[in-house]
């Protein structure tokens, strides 16, 4: 058959529930839109969706099944499952996208030809946030930055980059870990308060994020000085209290809201006529839009691949197609992404946005920063992976 | 039947001054007894008088806090229960303590444990290693099964057979260890007359066939007077009478504390 198959094998029931619902809804709505607009080069896209429960072996089963059904792209939205599957996708030549999660070192396209982070890695997110502080929020030199993170590899991931920048820019970072899932962090924050940080950077996800911000407020740290990794969304702001969270800043990979042409078309052709994949109020949320953006890039890559190499689309063609994506910004919804066979991150762009009581509002332009430091990390870890092989 | 008169007066098991406390309660108070080779020695007394506790002290479950216990001259009061077992002391329990998950046969085979060399490796190489041992010990077990007439239930799971049979299996398991000394804690509790008679028969047969010395705790006075050579009566952890069964039991103190109405005592 002549459909293109993308496999969205995600964790709907365990650790990533905070994001998966909306993210997956966005992905599906976007694909629905593409299909309604005639597909890619006349071919429809079929989505294979499964829950993996964040369990590596369920992920592997789902992956094997999807591969057999002819999927050319897979998105696990789960660090453990992506990690467990990485060797397989490399062997099978199936494209795996790991937007905003998973291994940052996969940005090294030469080592990971089939893995596409395609958006800012955690390292790039850290540099963007720090650079923003440097340029817009009073500079970094001599400042004290508290890195408060969930005690997991994910939470620790940006630490080396932050430390490198601390050296370069002459500020002090201190790390504060709280145990997962972070529903209770008071001891950690007593310590943070005594550090008297100028800025706090939060590296967590899910329920722990709201707890962090509330603790920050309680400990007298102005919300404006609190920054978060990409995993801070509307729901978190509401859990904190929509008013209390005003001023909170975060890294943003994709614009929110429905004011983009793509979103308008989704509203018009998919959501309004009732073809949407989920509740209407999710449309335009942070994670929904990230979902849309991932599919937009993937579809763009597929479009190029089909144009260049013709049907049928294979994993390898898709990879090459993606590697030819240049300056693609999903009609303004995201920073321009340029992928190449070396760089699967796409530049590491993002921006900082701020909660205004109702929505996240951009407070900077799209930019990237200190990619040299980021790439140092990428190269180092990629080398580690090659050795491990 | 062993000729009681000629039984060697050598004392096999000697308790000297044995005491045991549970918290503030002294369950056994400076008890001294000596049990002779080949005899059936009765231990009786009211409930809670410390009989089981004394036996537990001998078999290492509740090591006496005071006093010594010698078995063939060797002190055993500091040994762990399994070490005591290896010295040649076997016992049954007041409440049947069989291994519920096993068949009767396996329960009795367990009695051979001290003669076997169990290990996971031996099991892995069963056909070269463990099989011979298993079969060799089966023979001894079958002998005991014959002796105690357990053929009919050999392959039954042990928890479905009647209590009387279970007590017999427990006895069989103890006998399989080829002990020199056997302790029976109320082997006839909950049995009717007929079953009691069977049990007595088995005890006597076993004693005769294997040349055992037996320590018997029982509340059935007819049995005690019939088969025990000597008895010790405990009350409140203290020894209140000692001597040939009939005399000890007719001691007024014993009657008052333990027997009650005279005519019940045989």
């Amino acid at each position, binding site marked *: 058959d002549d459909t293109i198959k993308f496999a969205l094998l995600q964790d709907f029931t365990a650790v990533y529930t905070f994001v998966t619902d909306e993210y997956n809804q966005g992905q599906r709505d976007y694909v629905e839109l593409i299909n309604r607009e005639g597909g890619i080069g006349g071919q429809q896209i079929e989505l294979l969706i499964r829950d993996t429960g964040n369990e590596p072996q369920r992920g592997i089963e789902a992956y094997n099944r999807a591969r057999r059904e002819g999927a050319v792209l897979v998105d696990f939205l789960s660090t453990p499952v992506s990690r467990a599957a990485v060797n397989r996708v490399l062997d099978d030549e199936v494209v795996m996208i790991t937007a905003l999660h998973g291994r940052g070192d996969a940005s090294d396209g030469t080592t990971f030809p089939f893995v596409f982070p395609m958006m800012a890695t955690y390292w790039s997110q850290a540099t963007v946030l720090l650079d923003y502080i440097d340029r817009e929020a009073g500079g970094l030199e001599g400042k004290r930055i508290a890195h408060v993170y969930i005690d997991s590899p994910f939470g620790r991931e940006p630490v080396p980059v932050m430390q490198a920048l601390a050296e370069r820019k002459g500020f002090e970072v201190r790390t504060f870990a709280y145990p997962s899932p972070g529903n209770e962090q008071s001891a950690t924050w007593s310590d943070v308060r005594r550090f008297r940080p100028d800025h706090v950077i939060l590296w967590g996800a899910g329920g722990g994020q709201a707890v962090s911000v509330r603790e920050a407020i309680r400990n007298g740290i102005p919300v404006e000085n609190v920054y978060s990794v990409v995993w801070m969304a509307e729901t978190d702001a509401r859990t904190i209290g929509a008013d209390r969270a005003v001023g909170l800043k975060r890294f943003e990979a994709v614009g929110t809201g429905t004011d983009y042409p793509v979103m308008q078309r989704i509203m018009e052709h998919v959501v309004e006529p009732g073809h949407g994949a989920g509740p209407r109020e999710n449309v335009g949320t942070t994670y929904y839009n990230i979902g849309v953006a991932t599919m937009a890039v993937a579809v763009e890559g597929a479009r190029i691949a089909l144009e260049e190499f013709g049907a049928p689309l294979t994993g390898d063609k898709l990879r090459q197609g993606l590697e030819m994506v240049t300056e693609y910004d999903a009609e303004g919804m995201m920073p321009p992404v340029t992928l190449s066979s070396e760089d699967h991150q796409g530049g590491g762009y993002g921006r900082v946005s701020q909660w205004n009581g109702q929505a996240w509002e951009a407070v900077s332009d799209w930019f990237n920063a200190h990619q040299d430091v980021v790439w140092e990390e990428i190269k180092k870890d990629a080398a580690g992976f090659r050795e491990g092989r | *039947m062993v000729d009681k008169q000629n039984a060697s007066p050598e004392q096999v098991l000697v308790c000297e001054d044995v005491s045991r406390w549970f918290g503030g309660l002294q369950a056994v108070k400076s008890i001294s007894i000596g049990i002779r080779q080949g005899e059936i020695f009765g231990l009786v*007394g*009211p*409930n*809670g008088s410390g009989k089981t506790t004394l036996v537990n002290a001998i078999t290492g479950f509740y090591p006496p806090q005071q006093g010594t216990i010698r078995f063939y001259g060797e002190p055993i009061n500091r040994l762990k229960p399994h070490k005591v077992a290896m010295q040649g002391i076997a016992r049954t329990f*007041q*409440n049947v303590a069989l291994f519920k998950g096993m068949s009767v046969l396996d329960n009795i085979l367990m009695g051979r444990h001290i003669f076997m060399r169990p290990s996971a490796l031996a099991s892995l190489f069963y056909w070269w290693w463990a099989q011979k041992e298993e079969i060799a010990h089966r023979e001894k077990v079958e002998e005991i099964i014959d002796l105690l007439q357990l053929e009919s239930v050999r392959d039954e799971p042990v928890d*479905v*057979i*009647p*209590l*009387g*049979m279970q007590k017999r299996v427990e006895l069989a398991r103890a006998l399989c260890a080829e002990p020199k000394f056997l302790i029976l804690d*109320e082997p006839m*509790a*909950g*049995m*009717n*007359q*007929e*079953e009691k*008679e*069977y049990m*007595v*028969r088995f005890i*006597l047969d076993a004693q005769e066939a294997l040349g055992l010395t037996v320590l018997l705790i029982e*509340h059935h*006075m*007819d*049995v005690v007077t*019939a*088969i025990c050579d000597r008895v010790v009566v405990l009350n409140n952890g203290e020894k209140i009478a000692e001597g040939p069964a009939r005399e000890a039991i007719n001691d007024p103190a014993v009657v008052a*504390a*333990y*027997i*009650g*109405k005279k005519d*019940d*005592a*045989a």
Partner: protein
Amino acid sequence: MSNQAAQAQPEATTDNLLTMSNVEVVYDKVFLAIKGVSLQVGKGDMVALLGANGAGKSTTLKTISGLLAPERGAVTRGTVEFQGRNILPLGAPARVALGMVHVLEGRRIFEHLTPEDNLLAAFPSRGSRQRFNELKEQVFTYFPRLKERARTKSGYLSGGEQQMLAIGRALMTEPELIMLDEPSLGLAPLLVQEIFAIIREINQQQKVSVLLVEQNASAALEIVRHAYLIENGHVVMDGKAEVLRQNPDVQEFYLGGAGKVDYHNVKHYRRRKRWLA
């Protein structure tokens, strides 16, 4: 022989408290433990159920008191009536409320509770505090020893004391019928006599009917009026206590022969159960 016994049916069928007819019980869906057991207990009556180990005595009691379910047992045939009412559909607590109580084999008191709390636990929730105190005092007059130990954990009581507590606890429900499963099990002779005396007293003073399961047949046959003999899940004989006491089979198997047994010369291969075909 059993026909002859069967003729000696209880005289007073009109005021029967408990009637069990033709009951069959299966454990685990496969094991047939009793096979058509029928028996009756009159008001104020004292009846014994005798039999070898595994004959099905405890099963019979559990059938009456409704305690088969936890052991995966089920009644597959027959009826049990209490006060003229079919009780098989009722759960155990409901049967207790009707006025029967079962003292389980092996005492099974509430180990972590004091004797006093054991009594309280068995006392019906709707009863008044005053009634409780009355009943408690009554139990303590039967068993003065319990009063002394009313505040220690029951798990540390001696066997006899635990048995007393179990009986006393049962009395707290103010039963019309008390079923006792081997109350003499493991008790010293003196205590056996005491317990039996108290059972008789309870029966006579309070007109509580008693259904007694015993291995100690001679003691049981002395105090009961009527007895049933159960073997292998069947009632093989029943009759008045004094009649049964004279029966030679009963004498041989349950009472230790006519005279005293000579244990050293017990015949090795006795024919078991000659009343079975």
